[in-house]
């Protein structure tokens, strides 16, 4: 039944749902959570690099947003608001501990890649896994403002508009940061090869 209600609300704008939720409509808020949980989680993961932290941060963001709903201005954009809460929580978490290890610690799982790699010979799979591991390390070594767009764009296939909304940036800035990140990755990988 709840799913039916959510499907009925599919065409309702975020701000209208936020207003309904502020008036006590829990189903409306569930719809909002369903709409934005993926982007909130992906943003938190891109900024923290840890899926457990990302889950906690995204959930905490929705809890805080619910508590602050009575003060939400309907003229504001709900998506920008919830993503700003996510970003602030990520910054708080980063201040508590420098989370950069997850990307770097996601070392090459040779067995897993060998299993997933369908047509490659064992030696070629090992070589490819090593290259992917280098690329992961290179991404993990990027500064935060360059790593988050790369993760959101290439790992989560998010559009520039979605990335811009998630990070609170203009689209042109997102494109520029992606290009800058690509140049850094190429230089780092070229240095490692040499």
């Amino acid at each position, binding site marked *: 039944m709840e799913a039916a209600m959510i499907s009925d609300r599919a065409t309702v704008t975020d701000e209208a749902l936020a207003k309904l939720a502020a008036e006590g409509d829990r189903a409306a808020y569930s719809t909002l959570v369903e709409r934005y949980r993926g982007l909130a989680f992906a943003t938190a*993961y891109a900024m923290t690099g840890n899926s457990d932290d990302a889950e906690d941060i995204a959930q905490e963001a929705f809890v805080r947003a*619910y508590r602050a709903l009575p003060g939400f201005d309907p003229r504001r954009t709900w998506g920008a608001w919830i993503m700003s809460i996510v970003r602030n929580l990520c910054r708080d978490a980063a201040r508590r501990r420098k989370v950069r290890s997850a990307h770097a610690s996601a070392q090459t799982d040779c067995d897993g890649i060998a299993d997933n790699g369908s047509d490659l010979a064992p030696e070629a799979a090992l070589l490819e896994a090593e290259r992917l591991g280098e690329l992961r390390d290179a991404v993990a070594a990027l500064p935060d403002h360059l790593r988050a767009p790369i993760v959101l764009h290439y790992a989560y296939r998010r559009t520039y508009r979605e990335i811009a909304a998630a990070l609170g940036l203009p689209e042109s800035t997102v494109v520029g940061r992606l290009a800058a990140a690509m140049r850094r990755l190429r230089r780092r990988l070229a240095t490692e090869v040499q």
Partner: protein
Amino acid sequence: MSLVCRFVERSLALSGVQGTGSAHVAPWVRRHLDRCAACRRVQSDFESIAGRLAEALDAPEPSDAFVERVWAGIGAGERRTAGAGRGAITAWAAAGVLVVAAILFGSNLRTSERAGVTEPALQSHAQTADARPLGASRTAETTAGSSTATTARGEQRAARDERRKPRAEGQKAKDDERKANAAEKAAIRRMLLLRRRMAHAPERTTPTETKPSSATGGDATGATTSSAPAWADIGRYYEAQSDASSAAYAYRQAWHETGDTSAAYAVGRTSEAAGDILTAVECYAEMLESHSKASSNHDGVSHRLDDLSARA
């Protein structure tokens, strides 16, 4: 890498990111790529990196129970808020009990203060007045105790801690009041005692009759002859201006310079007029001590003490 190659690298990075591919690079970039092998390698690097990034990077998804956990977090927050609300209500109730107790205590304390001011000389009355706050405090304690007895044990502990603060402050104020009353009573008792002793003094003269003594002293010490009358004149001037404090100061200077008991009497009289009863008593006591050397002013002192005792 030349400057042109740097621009080409930037352009290739942008076009690679935007997904336009090598077919959509700018014509001048394409021309440069045709003749520059290094930039062609850069282009292939970008394409390789972009192609492997999706495979290299993990993209975990939120758990299936994400929404349920959000609602659990919201519910936990609401329970905490409700608990805090109950705590606030309890604190307000305890504060209300304290306010009632403080009002009862304060009203009884004011009554006792009034009794202490209007009946200072009557020791029995003062003792009665002193006894009132004790009874009142007991009443307040009983009231507060009966009120808090109905509350829970934790609330009682919090209320008791809060109640101790105003009670300790009230006790301190009461002690100070008692000390002041005791000092005032002692001064009045001493004044009455002095009055009785001076009333039985053998020689009685008026204060004005002692004035020549300063002239006598002035004969002996020429330096003080000029200043002592000046201080006395100043005292009389201030007394005429109804400035008793300044007059008392001037008379005291005259007394210290000449040792004239009439000046001492004037100091006592003006100090008394200024409300400084302790100084007045000290002056009269010193006059009595020096009575054997120069017994003077006794009538005046007796009159003043009579007036004081009559007023008391």
